[in-house]
């Protein structure tokens, strides 16, 4: 059983807002749902499968289908943090392949910016029932210092430098200058990044993603539905998902769960990393991108620093154009979860609908990858490989 070729992404929509104090969370979910369905040429009454994650309000999927008035045959609320929505694409394709639904809607929305949430710098308390909390919370773990420990170890083992990490932000900023909705549209230099204040050694402010309100949605459909719709055809040809954790204390911060999800996706798709024309790579921090690029096989382990340098990730300049919307680093990280925007920009690229300044020529094969949770403790990776077909 494979999902290869059994489902298409027919609708994609990214909310233009980056600050939505005046909107309810359910309203944001419904607005992105409407946007993605209109993009596909469908309506809410066509939807028979719904996917959402921990950002959905109330009782998650149930509260949202009640709000939107959906009538469903299939529901899936897989929660793996920011990678959830990449995994939802795969799960939607699987459900469609098994005949459980034909038109699947995936939504993400969040308002951390207007609610003043200190997303990365306040220790997160997952509650006393979470078995790890008593053994971690006393030590002040934040999202930033957790990823920073991964960066430090990578530097120690492989000689990776802050300048190399900075190139990732530089590349994202080159793309974001063409995105009128991006939070950070100014092109930055390596010096700007390493000259910005250190938040948690060795990560600077500009090594971190933005905090934004907003959301996004996707519509995944069966082949016979895609055939009837007047949109470019984006076919799902491979997917992989994998968790990684502390392994009972055998901590290894040098690799991510992408080392398992990536090869699974490539094997199913029957393509290699060197075949990929465009990659959306989860970019909560610059180090997240670097470790994932290695694990996905775009370069050897330890070579990420060299790989990302000198503009190699800039569209039209380097070998692997990445995050041409500006990514989480410059554009948008809605609800502290960037997985859905990764898939949305990959769809834009495959359709030829990215901004002309960043559109990859003849982009017929793309990868979207997400990491959710925290890289240095517990996280899950989702990878999808997509192709454009005529």
């Amino acid at each position, binding site marked *: 059983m494979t999902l290869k070729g059994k489902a298409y992404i027919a609708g994609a929509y990214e909310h233009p807002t980056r600050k939505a104090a005046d909107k309810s969370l359910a309203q944001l979910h419904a607005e992105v749902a409407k946007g993605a369905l209109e993009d596909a040429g469908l309506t809410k009454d066509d939807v028979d499968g719904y996917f959402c994650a921990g950002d959905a309000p109330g009782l998650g999927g149930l509260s949202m289908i009640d709000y939107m008035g959906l009538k469903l045959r299939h529901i899936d609320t897989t929660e793996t943090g920011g990678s959830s929505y990449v995994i939802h694409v795969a799960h939607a394709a699987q459900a469609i392949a098994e005949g459980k639904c034909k038109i699947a809607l995936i939504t993400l929305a969040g308002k951390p910016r207007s609610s003043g949430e200190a997303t990365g710098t306040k220790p997160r308390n997952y509650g006393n029932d979470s078995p*790890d909390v008593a053994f971690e*919370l006393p*030590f002040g773990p934040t999202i930033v*210092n957790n990823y920073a*420990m991964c960066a430090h170890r990578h530097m120690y083992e492989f000689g990776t430098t802050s300048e190399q990490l900075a190139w990732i932000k530089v590349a994202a900023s080159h793309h974001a200058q063409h995105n009128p909705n991006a939070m950070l549209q100014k092109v930055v230099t390596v010096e700007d990044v390493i000259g910005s*204040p250190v938040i*948690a050694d060795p990560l600077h402010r500009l090594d971190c993603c933005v905090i934004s309100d907003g959301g996004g949605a996707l519509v995944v459909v069966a082949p016979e539905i895609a055939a009837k719709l007047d949109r470019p055809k984006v076919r799902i040809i491979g997917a992989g998902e994998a968790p990684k954790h502390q392994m009972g*204390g055998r901590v290894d911060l040098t690799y991510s769960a992408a080392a398992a999800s990536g090869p699974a996706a490539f094997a199913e798709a029957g393509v290699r990393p060197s075949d990929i024309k465009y990659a959306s790579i989860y970019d909560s921090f610059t180090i997240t991108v670097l470790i994932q690029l290695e694990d996905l096989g775009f370069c050897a382990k330890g070579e990420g620093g060299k790989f990302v340098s000198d503009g190699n990730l800039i569209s039209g300049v380097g070998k692997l154009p990445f995050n041409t919307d500006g990514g989480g680093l410059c554009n948008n990280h809605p609800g502290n979860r960037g997985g859905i925007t990764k898939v949305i920009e990959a769809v834009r690229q495959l359709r030829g609908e990215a901004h002309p300044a960043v559109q990859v020529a003849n982009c017929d094969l793309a990868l979207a990858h997400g990491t959710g949770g925290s890289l240095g403790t517990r996280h899950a990776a989702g990878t999808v490989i997509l192709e454009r077909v005529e």
Partner: protein
Amino acid sequence: MSDKRTIPAPHVEEETRPYWEGLRDGKLLVKHCRTCEAAHHYPRSFCPHCGSDDTYFKESDGRGKIYSYSVFRAVPEPYAIAYVTLAGTDISMMTNIVNCDLDRLAIGQEVKLCIVDTEGDGPPVPMFEPV
């Protein structure tokens, strides 16, 4: 000093009470498995390596090396979070490095146990300081 910030008191379950009682007695106890003989952390009833429920606590000598660390500087009193690999084991635990010059920490540096009080009546927690 980096340890003036408030250290939240850890929540104690019966499953983990001996670990916290050990710290009150000045000892760092590490869970081991009688079935596969592997150590693990944080402590559980079940060995996460082999699944056995035949686990026991063994005292650590409190020595270790910094596996990785980060000085968190976005607060008035910066502090160092770290993973420390315990001597004689293959396991690393999340902790803080204290009583040190935060600008002179290094991966691979040898450290020793330093038990630090938490808020209120909570049990103390295991931190480390340079040897």
